[in-house]
């Protein structure tokens, strides 16, 4: 159980580089229980003192879905059948992205008191936030399942691809979480900027409108939005019950890997400076 390690600033050879990442895996092993503890803590604290507790994770998307259905179903009725299911697929996925990255964004700054005093691998904080949110997200999927049963949607075997999309989305969110939590340490106003980014992404993810109403010349906006691809892929297998589109799946895999790798690199490059900004 070695906490300490060699840290050197300059002249890193390739070999060192690999050794460093190997050591990371070692420390991750030592601190895996901390990750579990932080996730448990987040879950325990989230609904502490509320009477309905975890039920809020179900009621929240349900009411949101009801309201949006009331508002939009009349507008899009002809083009989307079973609007509630269409809507909630996008809504749940986007909610997870939005709440998990928002929570992890503040995680480093929020753990400042600890980080300033004790050595802990810092990436654990954003990661724990995303994973604990992922657990709430999985619970909220009950709403989707319930809704599909009530509306007697056809469910095909293709639904088995859904977990793959959820996993990719989780990886994507961890990457983004690492990036935004780093930026916020240096620039606190990024928090406000980010909420604008998330809003823009929400409106361009085709959550409550059909994809084909977007004019050709604007469709690049959707394609530019990573969340659009995840939602689109998830809907293909769950809502439409069709086989995965290889193009979409590859895009999602690529997005999540790029997100995770850039997240790790950005975080790792800056983490030693965090302490000077807290």
């Amino acid at each position, binding site marked *: *159980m*070695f*906490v*300490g*390690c*060699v*840290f*050197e*600033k300059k002249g890193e050879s390739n070999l060192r580089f690999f050794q460093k990442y190997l050591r990371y895996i070692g*420390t991750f092993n*030592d*601190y*895996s*229980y*901390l990750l*579990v*503890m*932080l996730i448990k*803590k987040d879950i*325990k*604290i989230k609904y*502490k003192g509320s009477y309905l507790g975890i039920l809020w994770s179900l009621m929240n998307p349900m009411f949101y879905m009801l309201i949006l259905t009331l508002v939009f179903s009349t507008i899009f009725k002809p083009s989307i059948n079973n609007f509630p299911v269409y809507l909630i697929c996008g809504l749940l996925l986007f909610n997870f992205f939005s709440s998990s990255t928002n929570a992890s964004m503040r995680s480093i700054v929020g753990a400042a*008191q*600890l*980080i*300033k*005093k*004790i*050595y*802990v691998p810092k990436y654990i904080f954003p990661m724990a936030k995303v994973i604990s949110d992922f657990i709430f997200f999985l619970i909220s999927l009950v709403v989707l399942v319930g809704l599909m049963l009530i509306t007697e949607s056809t469910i095909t075997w293709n639904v088995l691809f859904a977990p793959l999309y959820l996993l990719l989305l989780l990886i994507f969110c961890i990457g983004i979480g690492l990036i935004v939590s780093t930026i916020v340490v*240096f*620039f*606190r*106003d*990024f928090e406000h*900027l980010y909420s604008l980014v998330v809003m823009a992404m929400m409106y361009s993810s085709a959550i409550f409108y059909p994809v084909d109403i977007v004019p050709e010349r604007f469709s690049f906006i959707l394609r530019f939005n990573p969340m659009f691809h995840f939602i689109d892929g998830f809907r293909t297998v769950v809502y439409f019950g069709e086989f995965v589109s290889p193009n979409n799946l590859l895009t999602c895999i690529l997005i999540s890997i790029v997100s995770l790798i850039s997240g790790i690199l950005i975080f790792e490059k800056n983490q*030693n400076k965090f*302490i*000077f*900004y807290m």
Partner: protein
Amino acid sequence: MSNPIIDVRNVSMKFRMPTQKVDNLKEFFMMKIKRTVQYKEFYSLRSVNFQIAKGDRIAVIGHNGAGKSTLLKLIAGVMKPTEGSITVNGSIAPLLELGAGFDPELSGFENIYLNAAILGKSKSYIDEKLSKIIEFADVGDFIYMAVKNYSSGMRARLGFAIATEVNPDILLIDELLSVGDQTFRQKSLNRMENMMREGKTVVLVTHDINQVLTYANRVIWLDKGEVKDIGAPKEIVPRYQQFMKLR
């Protein structure tokens, strides 16, 4: 020295303080454009070299701002040095801030797990030590209550119990136990002495000369971020006291 437990080589720690605090984007870009982001650089530690062998009890002395706490934080891995390297071959229990990892909303019981996990321990390990920790902390039924309801003494007791019960190789201590009542202080001093007898390595930052003479077998004297001298307490302490009088 063959295979030191802590090896500090050529360590310098530079702090870069922006003269104005820039923490929003607009200001940052405005100032980048105007090229007015100015930093005041200062070295908190400069070319510090020393090795600590297993079982050494080191006291770090020096006046305020000499870099003692920075040194401890570097050893603890909280900060990384600007230059040089620090190698630590063992597990560390920082007694710098007792109960720094506590979550006020969780019970003392849950916080034992959280805090020990922060020190890198596994669940099974903590399960094993749990009863000992609770016994030493001696907070009674409060162990099932949220830590936000604890008195500062209780927090310190629980924090100390966890940090010492995780069986570290190295203890980092900043200002030995200034909290808690007389009984607890005595109890924890006893425990510390026991740990020293068992051959734990101790790095102690203090202003109290008596503690240096009682506990340390080597003294590192820091002055303005540089090592002024390293040696036996009997040799260093009188010169240090002389030096402090002259200032």
